[in-house]
């Protein structure tokens, strides 16, 4: 049931971005716990030393030199 709810949050964000309305969740991370009624937005800023979008990024592309490894090519279905 929580995947359903989060999926809806994602769809709503997509619509907001397309229409240019409301406040998009950029820099605001939504954390939800259904069991204990937790619903919070955490403010998160861009990290200056981020490997991807920081001031001196280490990751320069998806493939070739300066790319990261992802290891998602083997089969995996952890159940969620």
């Amino acid at each position, binding site marked *: 049931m929580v995947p359903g709810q989060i999926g809806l949050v994602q769809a709503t964000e997509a619509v907001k971005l397309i229409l240019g309305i409301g406040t998009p969740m950029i820099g605001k991370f939504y954390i939800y716990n259904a069991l204990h009624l937790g619903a919070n937005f955490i403010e998160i800023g861009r990290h200056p030393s981020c490997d991807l979008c920081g001031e001196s990024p280490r990751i320069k592309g998806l493939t070739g030199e300066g790319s990261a490894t992802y290891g*998602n090519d083997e089969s995996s279905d952890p159940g969620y």
Partner: protein
Amino acid sequence: MKTQEGALEGRDRVKAATEPVELEITIDEAKEILRSGRAILLDVRGEGEMCLGRIEGSRAVPPGLLEENLGELPEGKETTVLLYCSTGAVSLRAAARLRNMGFKKALSIAAGYNAWLEAGEAVVADGAFTRRQLDRYSRNMLLKEVGEEGQLKLMSASVLLVGAGGLASSAALYLAASGVGTVGIVDFDTVALSNLNRQVLHGTGDVGRLKVDSAKSAIERINPDVRVVLYPERLVPGNALEILEGFDVVIDASDNIATKFLINDACYFAGKPCIFGGAVGFDGQAGVFWPKKGGPCLRCIFPVPPPRHLVPT
């Protein structure tokens, strides 16, 4: 001072006030009256509601300006005046006010323009939408944040869903319902029975089918207007940029950490917003990663992907 005469007058007054005055008519009755050509038709909807078109022959009058607009009606106060709004509520009150102004034949069309549209009756619209689209998307377009312009934006937008499982299920269904122009889906997997406790995009009869095929059926069932593009494969570094290129927005509906980092990175290089989502058990998270607009990316939060044995997905 109460005299016998005064008391009778009082009883008559009460009787008159409690007798029902037929202010509302049905759509069929309205059509009959309009066919006779002897009625005035007033549209008392708000400006934001006009994007759904109007009934032919109607005159738009803001309900607050009734007195101003009808004070000197050349047709006279004996003429039949039909009023409509979106749902029949505002027009009913407006009809009552017209009666008080002396228009004895003021009538409100019950259930309003929305019912007229749903009943398939003829309307006049500016042509941006088909008749059926006006009806289908009316509840979107009536929202002031959406309107006609917003609906057109939705219909020309394209959203990519990476994954066709739990997160994608609700996202895909509601994106289809809202009228997004194109939905792309990336998923190499087939539907399993154990998916069905949460992946409502798929049904019992879909077990064994490719998830993307099942997703396409579900989307088309809701809204055949949506163009569905299928990628029955894994998202990998070698195909990610090419797949992302055709889309405005990417929704991370994947179920494993490695893919989440790949989606994040690919969106960064493609300059597209990545709508992150994760759900495990009773916990969920969501956010938009779009460094181009000043915010963080996934790696700002998790510089190093957590080892797989520590993270279920």
